[in-house]
């Protein structure tokens, strides 16, 4: 028997008839009952009605046209860039604008909701971004629409400029922005479908219309970005595609939440320090949701990851550069570009614990004004000092390879003018190797690599006692680490554990202080920074490796590595302390 049932509800949504139903029946259960009573209709649930009411009825709608703005002169630029953007990069670009707007308007709290709706019989797939960062002021509408025009704010990361347009068109074909700025008339901007399609008649049209908001204007300070007709590959990436072999929406949701929590970690903590800690981002894909949990600060995570060897401890290097740059757009044609960098670097203590800083691949991680921007992966080439040749007898740095993966370098840039951050433009997803400060950054990173290059092959088992992980291990785990790969028997390890030196080593607690360096001009030899010779460092690394197979030699090496503990143990013997006694000065 042929199935004559029709999806009446989808038809009502499509032809606009649903509006009357929504208005007549404010109760979702009641409305579902009414629809389900219609003859030959596919059943619809109250939950579906609730979602559709939220999605189609309660959202704003365009009203009368206000004016036509001259839009982007070169759509090709947007199109080319848009097609190269990953979904998560595009969403980050949109979030940048929201964070910037939030900092500009400073409302008490920021809540961002990203809702991804799958394609249905009634509608194409769409993304709705609802946020209360303060609303878009009328005077900022032009940069939102035009290409080559960006508004900047102090310490900003994005400002409704080129990056925003590329991001939204990387996701879908039609874009509507509804916004209510306090004290101003609610406004709607519409980039119609086909606006960025070379095969469409609108491709040659530059005008972008601004409208009044005809229905459901966003509350004051709220902006709603609607990206409609999502590209099929975007739906696939979000777990809503036709193919079943990709990640499911719940996995995508979780992964996006983790990604945003990482990318904006520093930004969040910076804002929280200024009293704006009520920041939430929620992602909903279909029927699954995930709240973003912001990662800890870079420094906090590095403390958990690095080895704090006193004579090669991690560094915190602060430098600042400024230079005059030609800027045709500026009245004076020149302006002073200025950037500050904080570099945190050190040797990762372990590869399989606390993977907050994954050592794969090795390279330099970069942040700009609190936002992670090395989104294409850590920077591993010569531009950040790998393979760098120092003048005179300064030597050469190694190239970045798997064996250099222990070296962890994070560069946090801040600049009042976001153009001075060395991020790619307009989409901030990579290092801009044409930055005004290219040479300075390269040299400073090279100096950091030089500091640690001789210690790169240091055994993990010898780095671990100086790490945060050490305090989390049981004594047995510590013994297994210390004698890994050696001929130590269980009895031998136990005997060591009860020796004076052994007990001290098992209870060892490193300090977690970074070595502070100020100014870019500091010479970065280990001798100058740590007062230890390069040869000594190489010898220690070599001796660690040479002694690893013999349990006796392991102890001999450890006593040389921790002379303080060995000497203390010796003196305690001399003081004739009982075996279970320990001196504390």
């Amino acid at each position, binding site marked *: 028997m042929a199935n004559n049932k029709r999806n009446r509800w989808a038809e009502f949504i499509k032809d606009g008839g649903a509006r009357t139903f929504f208005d007549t029946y404010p109760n979702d259960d009641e409305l579902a009952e009414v629809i389900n009573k219609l003859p030959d209709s596919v059943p619809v649930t109250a939950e579906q009605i609730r979602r559709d009411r939220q999605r189609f009825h309660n959202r704003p709608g365009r009203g009368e046209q206000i004016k036509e703005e001259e839009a982007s002169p070169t759509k090709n630029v947007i199109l080319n860039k848009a097609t190269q953007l990953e979904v998560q990069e595009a969403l980050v670009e949109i979030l940048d604008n929201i964070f910037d707007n939030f900092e500009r308007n400073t409302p008490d709290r920021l809540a961002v909701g990203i809702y991804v709706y799958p394609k249905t019989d009634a509608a194409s797939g769409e993304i709705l971004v609802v946020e209360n960062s303060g609303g878009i002021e009328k005077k900022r509408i032009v940069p939102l629409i035009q290409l080559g025009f960006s508004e900047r704010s102090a310490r900003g990361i994005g400002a409704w400029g080129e990056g925003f347009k590329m991001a939204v068109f990387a996701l879908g074909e039609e874009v509507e922005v509804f916004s209510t700025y306090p004290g101003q008339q609610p406004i709607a901007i519409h980039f119609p479908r086909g606006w960025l399609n070379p095969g469409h008649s609108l491709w040659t049209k530059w005008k972008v219309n601004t409208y009044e908001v005809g229905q459901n204007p966003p509350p004051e300070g709220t902006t709603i970005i609607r990206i409609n007709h999502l590209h099929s590959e975007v739906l696939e990436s979000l777990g809503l595609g036709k193919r079943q072999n990709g990640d499911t929406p719940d996995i995508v949701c979780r992964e996006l939440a983790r990604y945003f929590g990482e990318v904006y970690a520093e930004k969040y903590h910076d804002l929280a320090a200024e009293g704006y800690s009520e920041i939430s981002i929620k992602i909903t894909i279909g029927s699954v949701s995930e709240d973003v949990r912001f990662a800890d600060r870079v420094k906090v995570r590095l403390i958990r990851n690095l080895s704090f060897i*006193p*004579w090669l401890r991690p560094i915190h290097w602060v430098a600042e550069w400024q230079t005059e740059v030609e800027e045709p757009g500026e009245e004076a044609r020149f302006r002073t570009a200025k950037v500050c960098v904080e570099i945190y670097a050190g040797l990762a203590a372990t590869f399989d614990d606390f993977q907050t800083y994954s050592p794969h691949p090795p390279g330099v991680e970069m942040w700009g004004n609190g936002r992670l921007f090395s989104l294409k992966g850590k920077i591993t080439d010569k531009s950040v000092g790998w393979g760098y040749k120092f003048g005179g007898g300064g030597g050469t740095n190694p190239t970045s390879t798997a064996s250099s993966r222990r070296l962890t370098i994070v560069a946090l840039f801040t600049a009042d003018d976001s153009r001075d951050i060395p991020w790619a433009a307009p989409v901030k997803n990579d290092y801009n190797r044409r930055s005004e400060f290219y040479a300075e950054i390269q040299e400073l990173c090279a100096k950091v690599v030089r500091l640690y290059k001789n210690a790169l092959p240091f055994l993990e088992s010898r780095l671990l006692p100086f790490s945060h992980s050490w305090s989390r291990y049981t004594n047995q785990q510590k013994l297994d680490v210390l004698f890994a790969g050696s001929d130590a028997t269980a009895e031998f390890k136990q005997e060591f554990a009860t020796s004076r030196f052994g*007990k001290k080593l098992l209870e060892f607690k490193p300090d977690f202080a970074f070595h502070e360096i100020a100014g870019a001009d500091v010479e970065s030899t280990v001798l100058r920074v740590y007062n*230890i010779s390069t040869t*000594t460092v190489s*010898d*220690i690394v*070599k*001796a660690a490796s*040479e*002694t690893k197979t013999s349990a006796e*030699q392991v102890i*001999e*090496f450890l*006593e*040389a*590595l*921790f*002379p*303080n503990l*060995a*000497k*203390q143990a010796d*003196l305690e013997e*001399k*003081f*004739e*302390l*009982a075996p*279970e*006694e*320990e*001196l*504390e*000065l």
Partner: protein
Amino acid sequence: MKSRVITEEQLRDRLAEAGKSNQEIEDLIDQYAEASRQEYPDTEAIAVILQKTQEDSILRVRGFKLTKEQYDILLDYYEGEGKVLAEGQQVDANLLVQRALEEFLNLIS
């Protein structure tokens, strides 16, 4: 098992009871304090370790670990063959003819 902590004062009392003079007690406590501050590795000890392990590595010939005694026999053998090895010279495959080495190892095993 957690160690029982002895304070400096308790230690002073004990050392005094053991008949140490005030000066001796001060010296010992200074030594302890100085040792506690030592964060740099013992470079002399590292050098000794390296020297020793390098000597040991001489005894490793193409994956065969030789005792010092066997190594001395090897030296004699080669000197007998007219091949002179300088004292402490690293023995490796480039220096030794593989076949001769195998013969030699058969000889001493």
